C-alpha cells in the first residue's frame, strides 16, 4: 500500500536561492500535510532549459522524493503549483510500481543463468 512519488519542479531562475529554499520548504510542508513524507530533496540548481519557457532560457531544478504510507493527495498541491508564477513546470510521478517491478526483474535476472548452467 505504501507508495513513492517524485515531484520535479522547474522554478523561475530569477528567484534567489533563499526564495527557492523557502518554496522548497513550503511544498515540503504541503506534501507532509497531504500524507507524504519527503525522504530527499535533490536541488540541481540553475540549468539551461531545452526550450524557452515564458521567454526564459534557464530554470532552477528541484526534485523531491516522497514516500507515503498510504497515498498522497496531490490535487491541492498541484493546484497551488499551477497558480504559482515562480513554478515554470512541475511533474508528479508515482514510482513505487516501476521500481518494484525493476527490483523483481533484477532478481530474476540473477537467478536463471545459474539454473541453466546446472541443467546443462
Amino acid at each position: 500500500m505504501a507508495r513513492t512519488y517524485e515531484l520535479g519542479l522547474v522554478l523561475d531562475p530569477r528567484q534567489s536561492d533563499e526564495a527557492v529554499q523557502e518554496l522548497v520548504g513550503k511544498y515540503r510542508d504541503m506534501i507532509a500535510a497531504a500524507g507524504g513524507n519527503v525522504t530527499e530533496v535533490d536541488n540541481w540548481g540553475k540549468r539551461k532549459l531545452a526550450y524557452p519557457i515564458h521567454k526564459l532560457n534557464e530554470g532552477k531544478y528541484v526534485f523531491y522524493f516522497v514516500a507515503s504510507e498510504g497515498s498522497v493527495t496531490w490535487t491541492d498541491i498541484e493546484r497551488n503549483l499551477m497558480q504559482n508564477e515562480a513554478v515554470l513546470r512541475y511533474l508528479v510521478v508515482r514510482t513505487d510500481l516501476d521500481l518494484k517491478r525493476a527490483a523483481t526483474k533484477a532478481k530474476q535476472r540473477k537467478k536463471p543463468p545459474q539454473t541453466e548452467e546446472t541443467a546443462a
Partner: protein
Amino acid sequence: MKRARNDNVGRKKVFYRRRKVCKFTVEGIEYIDYKDVKLLQQYILERAKILPRRISGTSSRHQRMLAKAIKRARHLALVPFSAD
C-alpha cells in the same frame, strides 16, 4: 542468413550487418529515469525525435520505458520537443 542466389558471378555482395543489441537488456537496466538526461540524449535524434528501435535495437519493453522517460523529461524541459 541465406541470401537469394547471387547471379552476378564473381561479384559476391555479402552484407554483414552488426547484430543490434538492446543496451538496456545487456546492462540489466529495468527502470529508465527521466532525470538521466545524458542517457536519454543518446536516444534522441538531431531533430529531437526519439530514436526508433529499428535503428537502436532496443527491446520493445525498454523502448516503451525509454519513450515514457523522454516524454517526462520533455515536459520539464530537460530534453527538447523539437530542434530549434
